[in-house]
């Protein structure tokens, strides 16, 4: 059993802002961005942090990365306390928190990597080797010696990702690293994240893309209204909904097919419907369709059935997210994008 490498205990952050309403004097208003958040992130895992905008994800990450001081509670990162050993916490982490922000646009990608490498105390000789390694790993050769201002947004993102790896830290904080990347680049990056994790790095990953979370994360926490409302492996979270997967089978099924299927452990119900085409449609309700799909097929084909079409309908992480927060992540992202566009248009 791996031990925690990040541990938060009752982490609370309250912001005080001034509320300005027309015709009324300014009033102080407290915003509880985090309320008593406790969690352990285990050494060597990819930990996903999901939540709607304004849920407290960024505040949690900012507290853990020492950018913000918590109002109360505390946390340890790589054995160092976030309020008392800030420098050592920062030396233990690599971060990509603001997308392509955080790069100097008048410097080249290589110069940016060198600059931040020095700030992370990577000795010059090691830094030069590390930069060459990252250029090769992330395929930066074609643009790394141009100033960042000439990059596409995807190129800026990948250099920002390279920056997070410059100090070869045991812990990585990646905040939506594939946003604005094209599909192949995002796929390559996810593979690199997996490889980094295999090499022993612990990764805290936030994303709005459920398939990314499902593909990468060993465990996922859903955060909303400043608190963690669900935490577990993706399978645990799906099971926590108590809903069933449904697998639809279409084909020609002998009479006792339904009975044979009902005998398969894990199957809750089987419903057969005759179709106009002469085929039969079976709706098979089960707890975990992935785990028992082969047994379902074995049960019916062993009886001489012919399956022409299989359509699984699994419980997804998106379903879990909707059930826990009442919103979908895609809608949440779209609202923010629309607000951003409106603000830019002003």
């Amino acid at each position, binding site marked *: 059993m791996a031990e925690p*490498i990040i541990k938060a205990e009752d982490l609370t952050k309250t912001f005080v802002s001034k509320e300005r309403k027309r015709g009324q004097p300014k009033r102080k208003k407290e915003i509880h961005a985090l309320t008593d958040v406790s969690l352990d992130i285990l*050494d060597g895992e990819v930990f996903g942090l999901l939540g709607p905008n304004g849920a407290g994800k960024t505040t949690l990450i900012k507290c853990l990365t*020492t950018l913000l*001081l918590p109002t109360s509670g505390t946390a*340890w990162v790589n054995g160092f306390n976030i309020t008392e050993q800030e420098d050592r916490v920062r030396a233990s*982490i690599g971060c990509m928190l603001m997308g392509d922000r955080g790069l100097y646009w*008048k410097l080249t990608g290589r110069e940016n990597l060198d600059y931040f490498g020095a700030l992370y105390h990577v000795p010059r000789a090691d830094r030069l080797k590390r930069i060459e390694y990252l250029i090769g790993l992330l395929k930066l050769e074609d643009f790394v010696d141009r100033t960042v201002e000439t990059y596409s947004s995807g190129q800026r993102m990948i250099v920002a990702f390279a920056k997070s790896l410059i100090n070869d830290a045991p812990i990585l904080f990646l905040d939506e690293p594939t946003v604005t990347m094209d599909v192949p680049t995002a796929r390559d990056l996810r593979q690199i994240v997996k490889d980094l994790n295999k090499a022993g790095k612990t990764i805290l990953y936030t994303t709005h893309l459920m398939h990314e979370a499902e593909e990468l994360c060993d465990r996922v926490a859903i955060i909303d209204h400043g608190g963690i409302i669900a935490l577990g492996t993706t399978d645990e979270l799906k099971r926590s909904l108590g809903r069933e997967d449904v697998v639809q089978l279409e084909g020609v099924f002998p009479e006792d097919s339904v009975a044979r299927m009902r005998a398969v452990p894990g199957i809750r119900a089987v419903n057969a419907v005759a179709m106009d085409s002469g085929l039969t449609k079976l709706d098979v309700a089960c707890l975990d369709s992935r785990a028992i799909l082969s047994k379902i097929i074995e049960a019916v084909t062993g009886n001489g059935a012919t399956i022409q079409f299989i359509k699984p309908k699994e419980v997804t992480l998106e379903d879990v997210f909707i059930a826990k927060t009442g919103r979908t992540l895609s809608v949440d992202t779209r609202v923010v994008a629309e607000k951003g566009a409106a603000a830019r248009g002003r």
Partner: protein
Amino acid sequence: MAAETVSRGFGLGRPGWRASLDIVRTVFIARLRIILRYKFAILGETLLPVVFAALPILLGTAIAGNEQAAADNFFASTSAAGQGTTEFRLYMLLGANTFMVVSLMLWLIGYWVRREQETGTLEALYLTPAKRIDVLAGVTSYTLVRALIAFSTAMLLGSLLFGVNPLSGNFGVAMGYFLLGVPALWGISFFFGALVMRMKEANAVIQLLQWVVSFAMGIYFPVTFFGPVLKYVAMSFPPTLMNDAMRSSLLAIESFYGPWYQVLALMLLAAVTVPLLGYEFFLRTERRIKRDQGVGQF
């Protein structure tokens, strides 16, 4: 405090002085690279003090009727203030140039903080384990070099244009005072940088303070012209001391602050106390910002 989690990686090591020097060097080079990629910035800094000096020189000459009359007038006025000199052109040129140096050194830190805040690099910088003092040392070294280049070229250009000899007085001592005045400027720039980080605004504050500083420094006139309260306020401002020390050695006139050893003692005192106070203020402000909304908020 005992570690509550497992612990590994080179975050466990303590960086030494070499790592600090590496940061200073890297930040310095990066700043220099960036400004050199803005092609006309340094040219503007060279021309501006010459223009600043030209205005009062030409105005004074026009009012007096000719250069000799202007010099006589200036001698009469500055003698009353205890600093009689006929070399009004060098007086103005030196004042404008020192003001340019003070401006660059004070405001560059403020602009740097603001720009880094807006582009997101300030937050990126705060995510690194680099000590603030190392980064600030890199930035201030850069501002010093930039100010020195601007000072030297503008002095050379101004001297050729106005026909004055900047090496007539004790140039070495003047440069010594210049360098001794720099740490106090850094200290004030830390105060200012902290204010910009807190207020998230640089332009309006700089535009206002720029004229207040030029006024308080007495770039075109001796500050002894002020009334008693304003005079002592102006004299307690380190750039005024620096300006006066340089002028008194270069033009061979008396200093408002007394004999040379008093000037030197005051400059040493400012060089030690102002940076310490400024850095402490910077750290306290930074801590307060981290308690509130964070350094990246812009």
